[in-house]
């Protein structure tokens, strides 16, 4: 597959000629996503405000309570309030998502920029490296990282970040190559701009702007990824209130206490959906801007 296709597939940089279908107003879905995002960010930054309880406080006699007024999301096997835990887990989960995406993007930008800008041998080499990385399924890469550095939030974050990097790198490289050969860059040359100025003023801004969109899309996926690692016992460690860990703990009791896995799962899906929706909205706006 050519890089341009890859990028077109991901709906990036696609500036359809004459596309004047401007989104007229904020769609209902986008509004909802915005509200959920606000709630999530608030939960991450000031969990005490959203759920005043202690996420680690146990109460064995209150274990396995189904959702009720005092316990909106029910309680877990140690009688901890699941609503409190889910809210307090937001920060952790979002942090994993954001950090992993940052790592993946950072590495992707580095590799992609190297390949896209220097071209020639560097491009060739980086492309081969990416090909190799692609041949490692993501989870495998993550498993290796975790094997070497031991399980935990930090490792899981790094692992997820690493395994998403090749995808980002390819997109960035494709974007760069496209921008570099675009007519407006040639026009700038004809105007007499120096290469460095062309890079700073035209190429980089036009390459990196779409990354914002990628990032929002990536955060959701990274959280889902990290959950899979938690499920395999390689992610966040108890009793930390991390969604993936909670979900995987809840799975054990799925037949008797559905709420233990339902609510953390709901929040994971909600976050991923919110991030994706917002990312798409931003993308649409940028494309029509």
């Amino acid at each position, binding site marked *: 597959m050519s890089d341009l296709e890859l990028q077109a597939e991901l709906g990036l940089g696609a500036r359809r000629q004459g596309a*004047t279908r401007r989104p007229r107003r904020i769609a209902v879905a986008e509004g909802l996503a915005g509200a959920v995002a606000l709630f999530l960010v608030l939960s991450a930054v000031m969990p005490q405000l959203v759920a005043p309880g202690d996420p680690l406080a146990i109460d064995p006699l209150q274990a396995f309570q189904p959702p009720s007024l005092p316990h909106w999301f029910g309680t877990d096997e140690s009688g901890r309030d699941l609503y409190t835990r889910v809210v307090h887990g937001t920060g952790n989960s979002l942090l994993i998502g954001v950090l992993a995406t940052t790592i993946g993007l950072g590495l992707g930008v580095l590799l992609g920029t190297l390949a896209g800008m220097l071209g020639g041998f560097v491009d060739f080499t980086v492309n081969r490296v990416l090909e190799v990385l692609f041949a490692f399924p993501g989870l495998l890469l993550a498993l290796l990282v975790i094997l070497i550095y031991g399980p935990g939030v930090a490792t899981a974050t790094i692992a997820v970040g690493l395994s998403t990097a090749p995808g980002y790198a390819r997109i960035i490289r494709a974007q760069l190559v496209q921008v570099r050969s*675009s007519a407006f860059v*040639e026009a700038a040359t004809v105007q*007499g*701009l120096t290469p460095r100025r062309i890079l700073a003023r035209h190429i980089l801004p036009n390459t990196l*702007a779409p990354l914002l969109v990628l990032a929002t899309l990536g955060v959701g996926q990274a959280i889902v990824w990290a959950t899979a690692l938690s499920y395999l016992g390689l992610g966040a460690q108890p009793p930390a209130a991390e969604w993936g860990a909670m979900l995987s703990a809840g799975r054990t009791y799925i037949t008797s206490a559905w709420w233990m896995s339902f609510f953390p799962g709901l929040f994971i899906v909600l976050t991923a959906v919110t991030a994706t929706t917002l990312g798409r909205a931003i993308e649409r706006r940028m494309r029509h801007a």
Partner: protein
Amino acid sequence: MSAHPVTPAAGPAGPPALRVRNLSVGFGRSGADPVVSGISFEVAAGECLAIVGESGSGKSVTARTLLGLAGADARVQADEMSIAGASVLALSEASWRRRRGRDVGLVLQDALSSLDPLRPVGREIADSLRLHTTLAPAERSSRVLELLDSVGLPDGELRSRQRSGELSGGQRQRALIASAIALDPPLLIADEPTTALDVTVQAQILELLERIKRRGTALILISHDLAVVSRIADRVAVMSNGRIVETGPTHEVLGRPRHAETRAMVAAVPAGKPRGTLLAAPRAAGPAAPATAAAAAAAAAASAATSAATATPRPARAAAPDIGPAIVLEATGLTKGFRMPGGTRLLAVDDVSFRLERGTTLGIVGESGSGKTTTARLVLALSAPDHGEVRVLGRPWSSVSEQDRRPLRTSVGAIYQDALGSFDPRLSVRDILRHAVALDGPRRPDTGRPALFGAHNGEAQARVAELLDRVRLSPALLDRRPLELSGGQRQRVGIARALASRPQILVCDEPVSALDVGVQAQVLDLLDELQRELALSLLFISHDLGVVQHVSDRVAVMNEGRIVEQADAPSFFASPTHPYTRRLLSAVPRLP
């Protein structure tokens, strides 16, 4: 304004092939203005009705409506709409489907993309047969071959297996026509069938349409190119703003246009208008009032011109300032080859030499793929020639490094066919011009580079305003981005940007071929005016001979990478020597 019903001047008895009375089409909310409002016309068998009009006047919408394809959100109303005497106003989707292709064929405006790029064209053509006949596959294929042959595509065996991407524009257009006439529909609608083609191919298509008409098919030809229309249409209906404003036999409407709209259109056709003639009517000259004396004079002359619909000479050119050499641009023996995937080499430019004198225009014509753009890129030093050399203002240009070239870059400006693509999509018009102005502005003492952000100062702003004024753009557009501008406005911003560095040479690669005649006229006028005032030298590349004839002092014809003929414009058009040139010139349709 009242509707002008169009009735056939003469025709065989029986119901006309198509009759439309008081047709209106609107989109979206019911309160919105209709896009087509109350038009009426009819066409008889063997007759050709041309619908002309500026871009956006509703021509294509009308065509689609005649096949019930106006769109899901379209509101179609009419007193009558009948094909071969049968009303098609309230047809179900299924009955429409039975008629489309059989009773009426449509050749879409976007000829180049109207065939599925993933399917062999033979299949596309056979589809009409598959949908409406019970022919066996083998019979269909043989019919496809016949059709291809009848539209002038020999080698049908091979062609029918090719996909549209593997065909040239003209071939595609013919294949598309073949698919539309597969069932010999009594009515054929052809929407801009020649717009995207170069003259030679255009001539072939027109011939084909004429043949179809002679066979007794009723033909509706939609075009904004009056020259094309004049060649084939029996009657003309002029659309403006969704209405038919004028109608009548072709020679009458084009020869003695009554409506202002029609007169402006006729005037905007550059072909045959001598150099220095104003093309655009003043109302199209942009929102800003002419600021310079010359412009005012031009405007006055223009109104005179339109009233008479004849060529009016404009003020004489400014005397060329007496600085530097008289030959501003010189190309000698330029050669550029490309390696093809198979390992072969394609000589896109082959031993091309020319000289551009100060204050004059050298036009380069040639059909598609003849190497015009490649030549322009060599001149702009966007790619390096394999052999040969380009000199600018007498100094070496193509043979030096980009760094050494940079100081001279300000002397060479460029205007591109795809104006939109040549702008950074993130920048507003203000930023684009400001950056351009800064390059020409004072240089930083330490680095010798332009003091970029000095562009915020008053002087820079004044220059931006001056540039805008020059290209007659309203300052209100300053904060828009290129995507939010019309084609003509974009092209003007492009020109303003090119002028910012006070260039002496302007390289224009197809600067108007994406524009419709009206806008094209404005841009050509503007270039002409700028040349007069600033003594610009223009390298003007186009495949439109009419345009080139209008703007050039000297003309070069390219064919397969070579310049086959080069001469002063008047003698060139009067007495072409090279056979290729003669063929080219004879293919150009002209207004009567």
